[in-house]
């Protein structure tokens, strides 16, 4: 079963990390990702740009374009992983590993219904 692990964190706080702190966190996260990748369990991973760069399309009639993220929350959606796990316990284990590398904030673990790996090359 595929799980999406959605990463929420206080954007102000992440933005206040020094370059070194940011690099340290990314390095630790890379270790966790590498382990999953070797097991063939790691799907797409994304780190999103700040919510100030976000635009929201409200599907009214006609659709309404709004500046900013969908919801104003204390913690913002800053990125996500897609990971292949047998069950929720395994997904929680992955989230715990990620959490140990990147403290603060929260992960929302959501089973994936439809998955299309896409064709984007980076």
């Amino acid at each position, binding site marked *: 079963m595929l799980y999406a692990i959605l990463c929420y964190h206080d954007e102000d*706080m992440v933005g206040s990390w020094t370059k070194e702190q940011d690099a340290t966190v990314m390095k630790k996260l890379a270790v966790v990702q590498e382990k999953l990748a070797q097991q063939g369990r790691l799907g797409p991973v994304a780190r999103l740009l700040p919510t100030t760069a976000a635009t929201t399309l409200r599907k009214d009639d006609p659709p309404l374009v709004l500046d900013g993220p969908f919801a104003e929350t204390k913690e913002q959606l800053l990125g996500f992983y897609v990971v292949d796990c047998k069950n929720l316990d395994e997904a929680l284990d992955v989230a715990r590993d990620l959490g140990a590398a990147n403290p603060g904030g929260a992960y929302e673990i959501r089973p994936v219904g439809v998955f299309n790996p896409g064709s984007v090359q980076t």
Partner: protein
Amino acid sequence: MTDTAWIDAALTSARPQAVGALLRYFRDLDRAEEAYQNACLRALKSWPQNGPPRDPAAWLIMVGRNVGIDDIRRSRKQEALPDDDQAISDLDDAEDALAERLDGSHYRDDILRLLFICCHPDLPPTQQIALALRIVSGLSVKQIARAFLVSEAAMEQRITRAKARVADAKVPFEAPGAAERSERLASVAAMIYLIFNEGYSASGDTAEIRSPLCEEAIRLARLLLRLFQSEPEIMGLTALLLLQHARAAARFDADGAVILLEDQDRRLWNQTLIAEGLALIDKAMRHRRSGPYQVQAAISALHARAEKPEDTDWLQIELLYGALEIMQPSPVVTLNRAVAVSKVRGPEAALEMIDPLAQRLQNYFHFYGVRGAFLMQLGRNEEARVAFDRAIALANTTAEAAHIRMHLDRLIRDSQPRGAKSSKK
């Protein structure tokens, strides 16, 4: 991350909101700062033991307020007999703090006010910037002094003076009306731009020491944009800073000499910053309310979008400078437009455009640098040399002077086998 690193980041990010709220409460900058400092000291003791609070800013505001009130009460007791004012229980304050947090407009105006008092018109720009970095960003005097390349004592004095002036001035504490708010926003945006420029205009040998100024300006611009999500000019400002800063690693060579845009190694440009900047300028354009920051960001975006220098859309850049000239008439803008004109219509047309600026820009380094370059392109080497000599005399940094000297060397090199060259022609 270690505990203390996490706490540092939390304190830094909570600072504008917390000091802003404490300032509204105490109506005194020194008292607000002191209350915040005391709250931070308690946080350093309490957070490692009890774990981080859910909302660090609300925690700091509540604790800061209590500590500040205690201080006031204590000093009153020393002055006179204790007046039996109502005891303020922690519970009340917790509720107040929560109510405060829920009121989004308070939060917005608190931070805006805090930024705004730093741009008081009586303060010269250098004091505005220093004050904002100290009060809003929370950089230490030492850090600010280092970035400004002055001694700590001198910076301490500058900040103390600025604070005294701000204290004398009337700081408006009422929630601002719409017109007033947009005025404040404009002053604050200008100040953030100044902070950025202070770092950006550094020479090669000091660029690294001063780059924190650029980063801090970007942080403040993002903060401002988060408070005013739909302001196209704030999007433009943020985009401009991101796009300019994206080139930081490519702007100087190993010896600290300036590398011009067209000679930069574009692989060194920071693509993440560029992506964010381009996203913001796209968003801003949708509002169809153009302004100087958006236009400048759009110009920067055209450079960022060009993979090779020859891909640059100079025609569009010239049009944008033309728009900027109308919004913000200034000989410096015209000078920049002339550079674009030289690419589109050749150096002769460009030279014609800048000739009328000579008097107004007679002490401006870049005027002579640009003029010299146009003349050189036209083969008017003797005149070019005169212009370059003048530029060197006006250079603000050693890197600027070195860059012009490079042109001069090329002129001399080219003019030596003069007979051979001119006979070819």
